[in-house]
């Protein structure tokens, strides 16, 4: 016993190092399970409050940019109203959704798993699983919620897998991010039967019920047919500049709970 204590005293620095590393790695492993642990609310709320204060100071320098984006969006909405009759099918999927506007407080894009914090939380009826769009296209899904803030899993995240399709066809594939550049996303699993060209637009397929059908995602910049594969591998440029986000819209599917219950009951059978 004395020898053990002596050994521990001689190597207390190493033991402390191993203990702290063990603790840190436990946190990393737990956070990889989509950060579903107890201090979830606490972490989101604390970082949200701090970042909100900093954002309140920095936002004055960005007002011109925000105004320009809102003007662009206004004109796009006006154009969409005119073309509404042509978009009647997309309109049917949109009617299940309500839209909640929010301000983006922080936007990460330096990591391979990036998060966004918005200034709306559970008190504004925000729940994990809701989709988020910017002024032009999708930007992520809500993963954590505190009373006043929400953490969003950005599409610049290597866990991203969103169902997408070419605007003029119904063959769908999955949106991914390889972590290399915020200007390049990839799309896998679109079958070779689909007729696609460079500069075509990809939109949400509406399959997941998180996003309605037809929200723009990106423009095709490269098309590859992989040897031995029956699918395309596409590189796309996102329509939304994911390094420069100010405004977000949270999409609340009013019937999402009902949809998930139905899906679960099918799986059980």
């Amino acid at each position: 016993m004395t020898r053990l204590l002596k050994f521990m005293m001689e190597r207390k620095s190493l033991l402390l190092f191993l203990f702290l590393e063990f603790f840190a790695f436990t946190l990393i492993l737990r956070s990889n399970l989509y950060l579903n642990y107890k201090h979830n609310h606490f972490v989101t709320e604390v970082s949200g409050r701090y970042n909100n204060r900093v954002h309140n100071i920095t936002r004055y320098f960005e007002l011109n940019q925000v105004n320009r984006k809102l003007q662009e969006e206004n004109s796009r909405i006006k154009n969409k109203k005119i073309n509404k009759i042509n978009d009647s099918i997309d309109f049917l999927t949109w009617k299940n959704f309500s839209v909640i506007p929010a301000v983006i407080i922080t936007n990460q894009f330096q990591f391979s798993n990036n998060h966004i914090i918005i200034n709306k939380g559970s008190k504004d009826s925000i729940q994990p699983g809701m989709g988020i769009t910017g002024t032009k296209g999708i930007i992520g899904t809500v993963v954590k919620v505190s009373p006043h803030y929400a953490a969003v899993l950005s599409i610049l995240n290597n866990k991203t897998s969103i169902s997408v399709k070419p605007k003029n066809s119904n063959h769908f594939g999955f949106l991914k991010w390889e972590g290399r550049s915020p200007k390049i996303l990839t799309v896998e699993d679109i079958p070779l039967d689909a007729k696609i060209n460079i500069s075509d637009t990809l939109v949400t397929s509406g399959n997941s019920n998180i996003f309605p059908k037809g929200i723009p995602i990106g423009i095709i910049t490269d098309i590859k047919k992989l040897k031995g594969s029956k699918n395309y591998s596409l590189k796309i440029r996102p329509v939304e500049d994911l390094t420069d986000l100010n405004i977000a819209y949270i999409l609340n599917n009013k019937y999402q709970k009902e949809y998930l219950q139905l899906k679960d009951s099918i799986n059980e059978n």
Partner: protein
Amino acid sequence: MKINFRFFLLLFLLVFIQLLWYNHLKLYGRFVPIIYIYPFLILSFSQNNLQLILAFITGIFLDIFLHTGGIFAAVTVFIIYIRRLFTIPFLHQNRRNEEQINPLLFSFNNKIIYYGLAIFFTILFLNLLESFSFSYVFYKVPLFIINTLLSLIIIIFIDYLFINKING
């Protein structure tokens, strides 16, 4: 340098700037200097246990605000624990094992090597733990070198303008 009020002031300031850089400054989304670790790098090589605990707390603090689990805590503790190894290129083994080495007294060239290696490995391990992908990390090595150089410029600037002036 010892762990005193000046150390905590510098640490608080650099952690604040680090968070600001990660969350609010843009620089094309690629260039992120790592400066929060500097106050630990200039501590003398004694008082190791207290340094490890402070490194862990600083790391956890960054993890909370950057939503990175425990990545910063793990890497900061690791780098502080092994930082003696970054003196291998310029210190003899006997000298390296001395308890009271003060990094602030290194020559300019030795400081560049010591800070440079520490920052490069901090960036490398942060990215490795964050992505869990060697291919991703190898692809990003040129960017890590640029970020290391950017961090070095800022750190040498702080070192010469503030720290050396106070010590001198």
